[in-house]
Every structure is written in C-alpha cells, then in structure tokens.
C-alpha cells in the first residue's frame, strides 16, 4: 500500500515536471513567434518606407489654396546673388549666395502672388517668418539661398538645406534657416 502510494506520488511529480517543462517550451515558442512576426513586419514596412521615401521629391514645399507643390533643390537652381545682411547685433556683413529669387520660383511653379498676399516661411524646426506679397514681388529683395559664401547650406538633419534671405531688413530675424515650407494666403 505504501509502495503504491509512493509510486503514485512519484508519477504525479513527474507529470507536474513534464507539464511545467511543456509550459516553458510553449512560452519560449510564443516569444520566438512574436519576435519572428515583428521582424517580418519590420522588414516589410522597412522596404515599403525606403521605396516610398526614395520616390518622394526633396525640396521646398509651397502650400497655396490647399494644394501642396514641391519645388526640388535642382529646380531652384544656382543663380548667384550677393548683398549685405544685418545680424542681431546690428553689424552689417557682405555675403554672396547661390539660389533663386522667391518670386521667380513661385512663377515657375505657377503659383500666383499678389501684393495683398501673405506668405509664411517656415523652417524644419517650425521657426517662421512672415512676408508680404509686395515684398516678394519687389525685384531683388526676397531670395532662397542654397549656398552661402561658397558653402552649401545644410538641412537640420544634414543633406541639402535652404535659407530665406530678405535684403534690406534691419536685423536677420527673417533669415529663416532650414527653410522647408512657404504657405501663401
């Protein structure tokens, strides 16, 4: 009787150990399955993301009348222009730039600007400056620079960047660096 009871207890313990082992293996398998699923999802999304961003045009975005137009860096060109820029301390310095006049860019993109228009220039880090349509239409006043003093301007995360240049301002508050978007109202 004692032997039988002992055998039963031993059998139960063995079964418990087996069940625990199976449970552990199942948990490991579940975690492995989740990791594989996530890896597959990441790979698919990664390929999709790379393809999507590869086809996206990089440049300045112009929003006018609810429509977005991207002007690529190549389309901006490299017309040389120069002038004096007054910094925050009131010191005036002469600089030479390469880029394009904003009015010309907007005309090329078939975006109408009138003297009454309000143009907001925003940077990648959401710094913004306002321009009037009259200022933009004034010849030689508002420019988009892609290089300054022979050096290419960079974006906030590297790569090509742009800067807004407004000649005649008493300080450089509207010289928006990392220029990204123009919104025309």
């Amino acid at each position: 009787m004692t032997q039988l009871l002992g055998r039963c207890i031993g059998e139960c313990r063995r079964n418990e150990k087996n069940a625990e082992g199976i449970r552990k293996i199942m948990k490991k398998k579940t975690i492995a399955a989740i990791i594989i699923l996530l890896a597959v999802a990441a790979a698919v999304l990664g390929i999709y993301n790379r393809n999507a961003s590869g086809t996206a045009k990089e440049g300045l975005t112009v929003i006018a009348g609810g429509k977005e137009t991207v002007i690529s860096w190549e389309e901006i060109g490299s017309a040389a222009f120069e002038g004096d820029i007054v910094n925050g301390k009131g010191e005036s310095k002469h600089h030479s730039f390469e880029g394009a006049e904003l009015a010309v860019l907007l005309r090329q993109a078939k975006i109408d600007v009138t003297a009454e228009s309000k143009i907001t220039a925003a940077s990648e880090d959401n710094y913004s400056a306002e321009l009037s349509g009259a200022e933009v239409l004034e010849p030689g006043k508002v420019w988009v620079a892609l290089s300054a003093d022979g050096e290419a301007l960079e974006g906030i995360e590297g790569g090509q960047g742009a800067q807004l240049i407004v000649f005649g301002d008493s300080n450089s508050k509207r010289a928006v660096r990392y220029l990204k978007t123009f919104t025309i109202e």
Partner: protein
Amino acid sequence: MKAERLRNLIFLALCCDLGLFSKRLIAPAANVITDFLRIPGGIGTSFSLMFLVVAAELVPKFGCASLMGAVQSILAFALGMTGSMGALSPIGYIVPGIVIDCIFFISRRINANAGGTMVFANMLSAAAAGLAANLIVFRLRGPVLALYICVALLSGALCGCLGVPLARRLKPVLRSEGLKAGMPQSVPETAATVSDMQIRKA
C-alpha cells in the same frame, strides 16, 4: 537603513546609470540600422530600458521603474543629455517606467512567468517611449510610425530576451538572505564548519 534596502537602492542607481549611458554607447551601431530604415530611433531606447526591466524584476517594489525613470531624467537634465525632447524629456523617461511598473504589477498579481514578463515589459515600454517621442517631437504618421513602433517592439523583445539571463544570474546575488557585518551569512558558517572538521581530523 536595512542592508537589503541599501543594496537595492545601490543596484537601482547602478541600473539607472547603465541605462542612461548604454544608450549613448550603442547609439552609433543603432543609428546604422535606424538610418537605413529612415526612422528616428527606437533601438537604443530598448537597450537602455533593458536595465530598468532587469532592476524591476530583481527589486519587486511597485514604482521602482518610475523612480528610476525620474532619476534618469534628472541626470539627463544635469548632464545636458536631453536630446531632441528638450525640456519635455522627463516624459520620455518616466512614461516607460510607469509602463514597466504596471506590467510587473499585473504579472505579480496573476503570477505570470518572469521571463515572459520581462520580454513584454521591455517591448511595451520601448513602444511607449517611441509613442511619447513621436507625440512630443517627431509627429510621424502612417507606415513610418508603424515601422518606428514595430522596430521599438522588436528591439524591445530582443533586449528583453537578453535581460532574462542577466536577471537570472543576478537574482541569487540580490535576493540572498540579509547581510551580517557586510558579508553573506553563509560564508562564516562554511568557514566554521571547515575549521571544525580540521580540528576533528587533527
């Protein structure tokens, strides 16, 4: 202060520092992958959160991960390591800590497997950190956000798996019985037994 409590606090402080600085250490390698995938991060955060998860597993007190997150945010502020979140960086440190605490709280209630809990805690805390960063700074949407969170979950799962053996090895050290005069109790006992045996033999 109880020796055990002091030991736990020292261990939590160590994990805080390891979590904060390991992020910087693996950032160059992690950036290779994230740059390739064109996402703003997620891998380094998962690795740094592994230390918080290990600490939460070994110090079974509710709130210890949140506390560590808060300490990390203070350290990050003091050392100027706030990153792109700036003044809002404490949110990015504390939110994953809260998630870890909640997962361990639920896991202890339902008596769940420790390894699985660590993996899930690491996964979900990494995803929470990613979502917090996205809400504050990145503002990603659609497939890019999905990829960002997916990479955070995946790296969180892998780091969680890495943390399981680490916790298993540290557990006997941290969960041993109270200390006596700065030494484990078992050492003098063993020494006494050996010397007794030597005397008997002589």
